[in-house]
């Protein structure tokens, strides 16, 4: 049942009686070839690519709450591929390319908007670092442009260019970056996966793994035992909690990242602006609200709310960058839990338990990674080998000294 302009016209003539639910609500079968734990963006994308590109059809996605109710609905919707290191950039550029074809592939309007992501720089050293990163991006086939202050002024004339502490000297612009409607990503993947026969089972919490002779054979869930040949977990934010049930300790701390939305305003911010030096970034949603955030709170937590010092820090960043924001009122704020890894980069890997595969450690960058994460995790689950662009995202990389540390901060998760 395709969505199209003809369908809209047909349903309009029929008083919209023929739409029906976008996916089924099946009861779990006793056994599946592959069970994905976590019905967020990454889990649903994994199921979709397993079914569409790897020909595995006997799949279930287990979701503790409701579909799209976790971090896929809590992020600030930004997509970009502006990383530097060889272990990261090809992966994120693949993700960017998948975003560009996503709506056609899923037959779903995810409001992919390539409105440009601009990172501002404030010193000669930072500009040099941006030039280096931009060149690394170009080498991997991504787009990057280094702007001077005049170029930035043409895009955003109202920024505080002559601030004494952080004067704006220019920025690194990725024009193909932008925003995507996050809920629609979850819904689109769910609908497309469901049409390929994937069972999406909501309100089904995984209570324990059943492991026999070092091999996973299924999951104890709140809806009974579900057998599986292979289990893939994609529950970033709760990875340590879930994997501890299988006796696995991870190189991860859970931290909260807050985000905020202002009242709806007329169009004023055409793209995404990041003010890294001041811990602040923002964009404007199509509904008009300014969507903005800053740093993580910086302490271990599983509470999906943060504390006031970071709210204050974010608002100071806003006022420092764009004083006119002082006239806008903040409408709401919320928090989401991040898997903060020891080097700031994610994991798509097998575990020491046969048949149990792990996807997590996405830090505050999980949303943009959704399509490539799903594709690479599907590749790993179906073939047993890492996808070439995710080959360095291994759990044992710390023991091997092969960290992917974009910021060079070392094993301190709250600094990444």
């Amino acid at each position, binding site marked *: 049942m395709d969505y199209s302009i003809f369908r809209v016209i047909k349903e309009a003539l029929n008083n919209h009686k023929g739409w029906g639910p976008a996916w089924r609500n099946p009861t779990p079968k006793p056994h599946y070839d592959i069970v994905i734990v976590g019905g967020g963006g990454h889990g649903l994308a994994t199921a979709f690519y397993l079914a569409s590109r790897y020909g595995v059809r006997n799949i279930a996605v287990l979701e503790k709450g409701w579909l799209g109710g976790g971090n896929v609905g809590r992020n600030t919707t930004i997509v970009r591929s502006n990383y530097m290191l060889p272990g990261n950039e090809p992966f994120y550029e693949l993700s960017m390319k998948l975003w560009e074809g996503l709506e056609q592939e899923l037959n779903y309007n995810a409001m992919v908007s390539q409105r440009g992501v601009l990172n501002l720089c404030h010193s000669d050293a930072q500009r040099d670092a941006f030039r280096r990163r931009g060149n690394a991006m170009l080498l991997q086939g991504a787009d990057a442009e280094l702007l001077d202050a005049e170029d930035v002024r043409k895009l955003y004339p109202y920024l505080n260019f002559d601030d004494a502490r952080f004067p704006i000297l220019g920025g690194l612009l990725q024009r193909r970056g932008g925003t995507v409607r996050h809920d629609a990503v979850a819904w689109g993947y769910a609908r497309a996966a469901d049409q390929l026969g994937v069972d999406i089972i909501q309100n089904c919490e995984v209570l324990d793994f059943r492991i026999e002779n070092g091999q996973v054979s299924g999951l104890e869930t709140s809806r009974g035992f579900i057998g599986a040949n292979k289990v893939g977990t994609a529950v970033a934010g709760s990875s340590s909690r879930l994997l*501890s049930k299988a006796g696995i*300790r*991870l190189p991860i701390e859970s931290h909260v990242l807050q985000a905020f939305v202002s009242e709806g305003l007329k169009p004023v911010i055409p793209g995404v602006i990041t003010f890294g030096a001041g811990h602040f970034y923002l964009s404007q949603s199509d509904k008009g609200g300014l969507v903005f955030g800053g740093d993580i709170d*910086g302490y*271990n*937590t*599983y509470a999906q709310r943060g*504390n006031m010092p970071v709210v204050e820090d974010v608002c100071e960043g806003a006022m420092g960058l764009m004083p006119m924001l002082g006239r806008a009122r903040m409408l709401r704020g919320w928090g989401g839990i991040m898997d903060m890894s020891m080097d700031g980069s994610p994991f798509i890997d097998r575990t020491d338990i046969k048949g149990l595969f792990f996807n997590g450690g996405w830090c505050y960058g999980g949303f943009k990674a959704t399509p490539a994460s799903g594709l690479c995790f599907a590749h790993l689950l179906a073939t047993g080998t890492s996808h070439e662009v995710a080959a360095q995202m291994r759990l044992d990389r*710390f*023991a091997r000294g092969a960290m992917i540390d974009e910021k060079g901060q070392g094993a301190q998760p709250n600094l990444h």
Partner: protein
Amino acid sequence: MLINHPLLGPRDAQEFVYKGDASLLRRPDSNAEDALERFTDYAYLRDNPAGEHRELWYHEQGDRSWLVVTRNTLTHEVLDVQLASEVGR
């Protein structure tokens, strides 16, 4: 969050820098046979529990003391605060 400093009384958490799991106080024996493996676990792996968590907070904007704070990671409730120097090894 307020952290009840044993010497200074309740202080805003903003004055502190979070330094991670308090198990970092227990450095492995560097002469052990499997010292490399133990140090890898020590430096990179964490329990990361939901619930009670013993953790290090450094009073950077205060008296520069290191505290061992027991805190609930589900509610942010601070349950106990001790000086790291008194907790010892």
